[in-house]
């Protein structure tokens, strides 16, 4: 599988690291422009929320890769509902 080739695997995770760097830099500018009063614990909650969102997709697609025909979207649906609800709560908190 291409992504697990000796060369591509580290490149993939380097690219992911770059993407996360961009997200962090972009989030900082977004917060300034929206006038949000961000503190360290608010940033921490935002990071945890994004991890939860990532976990929902990573878990679901892992199950898809394992050919779990029903489990993957049940997993995604269940976790997305929780993530969206928590996201709304987080948005109200940081506003």
């Amino acid at each position, binding site marked *: 599988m291409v992504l697990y080739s000796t060369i591509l695997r580290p490149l993939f995770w*380097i690219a992911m690291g770059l993407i996360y760097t*961009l997200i962090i*830099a972009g989030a900082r500018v977004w917060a300034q422009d929206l006038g949000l009063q961000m503190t360290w614990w608010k940033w921490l909650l935002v990071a945890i929320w994004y991890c939860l969102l*990532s976990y929902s997709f*990573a878990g679901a697609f*892992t*199950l898809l890769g394992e050919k779990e025909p029903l489990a993957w979207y049940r997993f995604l649906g269940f976790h997305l509902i929780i993530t969206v609800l928590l996201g709304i709560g987080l948005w109200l908190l940081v506003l």
Partner: protein
Amino acid sequence: MPNLIKKWIRLKRRYTVRGKYLMAVGIVLFVGFFMLVFRGVAFADDETYRSILKIGGLVGALLGIVGIAVAGYVAGKHYDSHTGWERYTHGAGMFFNRKSFHKDKPTYEVAEKTRRVNWEESIFNRLQMMMGLMMPPDGSEPKWAPDKGPEALPEPIRTFFLENRDKYDLTLEAFSLAQKQHEEWPKYADRYAIIDAWTNAMGGSFETWDGKLNPDPLYPPEPVGPPEEWDFRGIHRDKPLPFKSTTHASAFIKKITHTFGATLVGITKLNPDWCYQGSLRGVGKGNYEVPSHWKYAVVFAVPHEWDMFYVNPTYGTSYDAYSYLRVIAARLEVFIHELGHPARSHVPPFLYDIMMPPVAVDAGLGEQGRMGLLVTPELGGNARLACVTTNIPMEVDKPIDIGIQEFCRKCKICAERCPTGAISRRKEPGVVYGYKRWKIRDELCYKTWTSVAASKVSHGCRICLAVCPYSRKNNWLHTFPRTIDPRDPTGIVSSTLLWMQNAFFTYPKARDFLPPPTGKNATYHEPPDWLRTEKWFDVRKTW
């Protein structure tokens, strides 16, 4: 600059062209992104860069999700998650740190006076004897037939069946199901052609094409004569090569066993209770003391190929693991002889003088599950066992308690999915040979084996192993909870995981695993492409 060009040419020679360009793209991405981000941060007042960062951040957030989903998909699909069949060796598959779970005693309890297991109490030993009478290996006239009844059977199975008439009836029922399966095989011969060929390829080390024990010399060879002679054959040293210490001996033997192909290896002192009483390979029937040189057992496990493990019973087989275990045991037996010590293999399909799961429990490979078989932290129930007994003084492993007993009390998925109800649904285990443990009803289990359309010669089921929540591949999604659960004293993790298992995963109903008209020849997963005859061969698909 010329040096750089020379290095680039060397790189081109070393890696594929695709790899080289991908590396170049990666370097450009790396430099480009960092220039963008750091210039953006450094010149944060510049509106253009602020806009680029904002849009980049949003796109990055989306790409981050897509990337992690792709990584997840690959983790689920890739063969690196197939512990024991991945690209590692040298014991990398035995990755669970057992130290924190070591106990002085195994997790089965001694409930009353214990005893050695009688040879005839193993269903495989009974079947082996009955088959030998009905179809003598030398081609002579049958010496027994079912219509003669249990009274006409030789000892010790005569008395056993007279005392356990229900087991006798179930065995005959299984024989008639096997006959039916054999007659119906042509219906399935195309559909299951690949797995049938694969099974026989794996079984070639011990079985002929028509399912009989191979008359040619087996590897490892079957014992001939008393263990005091047979187990010492091939020793050419005047005295054994001395190990530096028992610790060295243990570590070295485990290392070598891994290099021979074992995924999990453990060493224990052999508990005589696990040695069959009433028969000894190479000698025959009779009561024997456990040979004094069977002091230690080097017990090892390998998994079934994972793709076919999830498509049991019809597309699966036991023979792959059997074949590998036999080769590992044969190599280890010779290797130990070369070091100057006696050694004897105990190997599949039924050529054992000892019961394997409790020996593996003693050696700290795992715990005995509700389905009566070993459940390990790395392989779950996908662990098949063999061992070599020897007298090399070795440091032994301790048994482990990773909470399987408690987990099995809650779970019961294997019991609910067993087509013939052979697995107990009771909360607490019973007492067997004096030990508190779960025991399956073996004749009912064998009835499923003989019912399913598995292969033209081999019988098997393995559904209980495939549906066990611990029998999941080694990727982050499953290995993480398997790592956390044994460390959770509250049981909340296992309860949550079991809820998720039942809510998200769909298993076929128990009877659906059986062939029509009772069931649908169902499998837990869809068969992979490489096991589908219609994908590779010009056959008409009628299923």
